[in-house]
């Protein structure tokens, strides 16, 4: 990886300030960069940045670096970091906030299956009010790595044959009533 000097104009301190004022980010400033979160995290070995680094980036205003990282998507929400954190920082909540913002700003790592899955899942629920497993997985595969469909084909075939996989697109009645909920939550956020 090529290393580049970071100029201070790339740092968005105003964003960092807002971040620490909103739910989930309040205790972020208390971070003493001890790295307990990264040590406790069962997935940190697969991450491009450790959770500690993500917090440092947020605090220093490096918004894009934080939002583009795979780390926030690999977080499995096991809360091990939050349990161990000596400063009682709710790191998992911070990860969720970053995920939301990454989707909204279209800054998530492209073709990385987890954000694609999250996006397709939300999209489908928003449009139809129900999650049709086959179609969510199919769309995720198409938008991240279509070749994965070949390796999944056999399993899919077996599931379909035994009636465990439906190709039907399900939907609920009165979809407008459901769409009221995310709209209200957006107002709060």
């Amino acid at each position: 990886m090529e290393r580049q000097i970071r100029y201070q104009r790339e740092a968005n301190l105003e964003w960092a300030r807002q971040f620490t004022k909103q739910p989930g980010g309040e205790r972020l400033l208390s971070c003493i960069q001890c790295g307990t979160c990264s040590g406790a995290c069962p997935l940190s070995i697969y991450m491009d940045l450790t959770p500690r680094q993500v917090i440092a980036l947020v605090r220093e205003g490096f918004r894009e670096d934080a939002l583009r990282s795979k780390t926030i998507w690999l977080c499995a929400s096991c809360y091990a970091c939050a349990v161990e954190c000596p400063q009682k920082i709710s790191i998992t909540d911070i990860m969720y906030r970053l995920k939301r913002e990454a989707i909204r700003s279209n800054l998530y790592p492209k073709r990385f299956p987890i954000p694609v899955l999250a996006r397709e899942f939300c999209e489908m629920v928003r449009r139809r009010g129900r999650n049709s497993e086959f179609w969510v997985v199919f769309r995720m595969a198409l938008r991240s790595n279509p070749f994965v469909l070949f390796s999944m084909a056999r399993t899919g075939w077996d599931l379909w044959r035994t009636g465990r996989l439906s190709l039907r697109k399900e939907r609920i009645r009165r979809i407008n009533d459901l769409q009221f909920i995310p709209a209200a939550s957006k107002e709060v956020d």
Partner: protein
Amino acid sequence: MSERNGEVRIGVYICHCGVNIAATVDVRAVAEYAATLPGVVVARDYKYMCSDPGQEMIQQDIRDHQLNRVVVAACSPSLHERTFRNAVERAGLNPFFFQMVNIREHDSWVHSDREAATEKAKDLVRAAVMRVYFHKPLERRRVPVNPDVLVVGGGIAGIHAALTVANSGKRVYLVEREPTIGGHMAQFDKTFPTLDCAACILTPKMSAVKEHPNITLWTYSEVVSVDGSVGDYRVVVKRKPRYVREDLCVGCLQCIEACVFKEAKFDDEFNLGLSKRKPIYIPFPQATPKVVVIDPEACIQLRTGKCKKACLEACAERGAIDFEQKETYEEIHVGSIIIATGFQTFDPRRMPQYGYGKYPNVYTTLEVERLVNASGPTGGQVVTRDGRVPESVGIILCVGSRDERTNRWCSRVCCMTSLKLAHLIKEHTGAEVFIFYIDMRAAGKGYEEFYQRVLNEGVHFVRGRVAEITDWAMDPSEEGKLIARVEDTNTGFVRRIPLDMVVLAVGLEPQFDALNVQRLFGIGCSMDGFFLERHPKLAPSPTYTDGIFIAGVCQGPKDIPDSVMQAGYAAAEAIALADTGFFELEPNTAYIIAEECSGCKTCIPLCPYQAITFNEEKKKAFVNEVLCKGCGTCVAACPSGSIKQNLFEDEEIFSEIEGVLAYA
């Protein structure tokens, strides 16, 4: 071996010191070996000889086996020789029939080969056994102690020590080099972690010193010579001329107003040159004593003698100004001395990469203390030298600390000072503040909590030592700024951070003349140049020179609470010495065999303590045992071999050498 002392019955005790000795030395084998040496009646090893049961074991053996000599092989005599001498004495033996062998610092701690270390321990024990054979009973001598105390240095440590001693009813002389007491603390704005204003807590103590009936305060004065020893030090103090009579000046400051210099144009030392003063000045409004001083380098009258002397006219009524004043010398007698001469801050010009002295907006922490201070040169406005309120400020830690190229030690106060200044700068200006740190060291009551407070105020903590400060912009956003180039090891980036103001957290180091002070008082220095305490843990204020104590940063970097604690400790030691009324001297003094003395006087100028006098009547030299420190210089120099030294008699030393060289 001679039978001079009757039947010699020696007991030898080998200490494990937990595992400190036993891990490297086979103590059981050493004890078994010692038992075979001539004269040894009993030899044992034990886990902790210095403990109560260990001492009890020795005393029991003295009674059971009629021992009349004791050897303990354990740690350094400076730690426990007194312990064992007292133990032996309590069992009815003369304490000087005891010899200590150091098999910890001299053996187990410095070797790793167990077999060789065990052999070395045997050699050392054998040497002691052969030496103790010739020991003689000796008497400790007592010298009276003058209860008066001299305190050198009028910073917070000196002030606190002086007040504590004076409150116990003893007379105290407080000598300060500067025109006022208060030291560095008087320059600070607020004190961490509670943010009390430094002046509010210091100035009442300063005036208490001035008003105290038991304290003689001599400012603008220096100790020039120290003679004598514990209980009776004779000290000469030079009182520099301030050209103003302290007894007449009331501090009305009209002379300053009247001075022919209408504009102040000389660097104000108290404000570190951030403001100007006149040739006649007072260091700061709360200076104690509140007496003006004339700078002879700046005053026209003192330089040329051709001034219309407006100040003299302004003070005509009191007549306090005296251009004829000369330096005077005062001789005082004191029983003990507390040295609290403080520190100087690191000169950051020694690290050119930070541009101090080159870029006007690079400051030291001490300068910023003055800037944020309401009575400072800017009235508490934090502004750069070009008058702007900074939007971004960087504080660089460990400037002249933790660095093999300058000072190796951690200066201990800079982390907290920087946290405090970060808080104050943010409060005064609302600037973005960056702290560049290697480790945050906030060890102290309430310190970590203060660190958390500053973290939550949104100060940026960039972990990394700044490589350089430059004004070379590589990006339009950096024009007109100072740029810190640093690896931020928290985010993992090499960053360039543009700053309006750079603050260097300069470390603490010994005063420029610490070496002279050390020689003047005959005390030691540690490797780093700070004054050496007798024991780093158990005697951190007494020195190896009896009756001289050290307090404050002159002993090593420390903050205000620690300085005050050490000053109180030094005062308690001085009070205890004065209240005991006497001091017991070690009997390892030299003595002259008068019949053999040829009267050549070789020894007299060699004695560093002026302990030898010449008796003109008898034509013989004579050693004053109170003054003799037992250095042995005269013993070695005497051409006729007629000077001997207790505990270091020829036969004692020669048998010790024989013992250490005789291979088992």
